[in-house]
């Protein structure tokens, strides 16, 4: 390994360590705040239940979001407080709703399909650091071989009979590329999403 690459690796690891330390510090603060809020809400709940005359044994931890079996008005107020406390909660809830909604997913998928640009995908494949130069050349050679084969079958008017075999080879090649792109999951996902468009362009490129 060359000296420059070694130093880049070291720098990368150092950046990761700093990032993780920062994340852990944030997480610890968040835990402290959350536990503090939980304790406060528990205190509020205890006080309000005592005022409402409910037995304390029936109280569950409101910070965990478990519903009280007998929710009095005061308890409901106490339960409402911790739900409003974290500022990140609304955005997370929106995301969850969007994910759990089938229509939203379909719309999202439609937008992604519309956004697929073959030139951009090819450029991203060329630029990705997850695959080395020689491997990229080997993949390029495989794709060119497949294109040549399609062209040959077209000239012999045998494309329809060989379509299943060529599709199987295409799928195999795509799986190989996706396996190589483990360090670039976004590109891997986009390639898989665009597989039908790639297949059509591969067939259409030789017409």
């Amino acid at each position, binding site marked *: *390994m060359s000296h420059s*690459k070694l130093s*880049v*690796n070291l720098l*990368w*690891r150092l950046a*990761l*360590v700093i990032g*993780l330390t920062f*994340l*852990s510090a944030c*997480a*610890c603060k968040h*835990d402290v705040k959350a536990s503090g809020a939980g304790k406060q809400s528990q205190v509020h709940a205890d006080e309000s239940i005592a005022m409402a005359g409910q037995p304390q044994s029936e109280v569950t931890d409101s910070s965990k979001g478990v519903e009280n079996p007998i929710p009095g008005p005061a308890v409901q107020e106490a339960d409402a407080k911790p739900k409003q406390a974290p500022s990140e909660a609304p955005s997370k809830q929106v995301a969850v709703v969007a994910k759990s909604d089938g229509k939203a997913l379909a719309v999202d998928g439609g937008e992604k399909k519309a956004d697929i640009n073959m030139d951009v995908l090819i450029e991203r494949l060329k630029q990705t*650091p*997850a*695959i*080395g*130069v*020689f*491997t990229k*050349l*080997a*993949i*390029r*050679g495989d794709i060119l071989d497949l294109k040549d084969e399609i062209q040959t079958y077209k000239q012999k008017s045998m494309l329809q009979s060989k379509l299943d075999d060529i599709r199987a080879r295409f799928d195999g090649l795509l799986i*190989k590329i996706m396996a*190589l792109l*483990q*360090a670039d999951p976004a590109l891997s996902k986009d390639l898989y999403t665009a597989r039908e468009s790639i297949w059509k362009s591969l067939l259409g490129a030789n017409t």
Partner: protein
Amino acid sequence: MKHLLLTIFALSLSVAPALAVTPAEDIATTIMLRGYDCGGRQVTNIDEQADGMGNKTIRATCPNGVRYQINISADGRVQVKPLR
């Protein structure tokens, strides 16, 4: 929480070098992509030669002891063959 962070840290250390592919890893991947067994993810004893026509010849030894020759033509075609 600590265990989770330690796990993430360990994973990040193992994933980090994978982002920057070294020539040794690249050549090993190319050999495996052509269907040859390499016995590991990195080759050793890399010997690279280029002629004036733009063709390149690389010889490398896999962890299983087999030495391979990789020919890269000027138009970017890659050919791998084991050396006896």
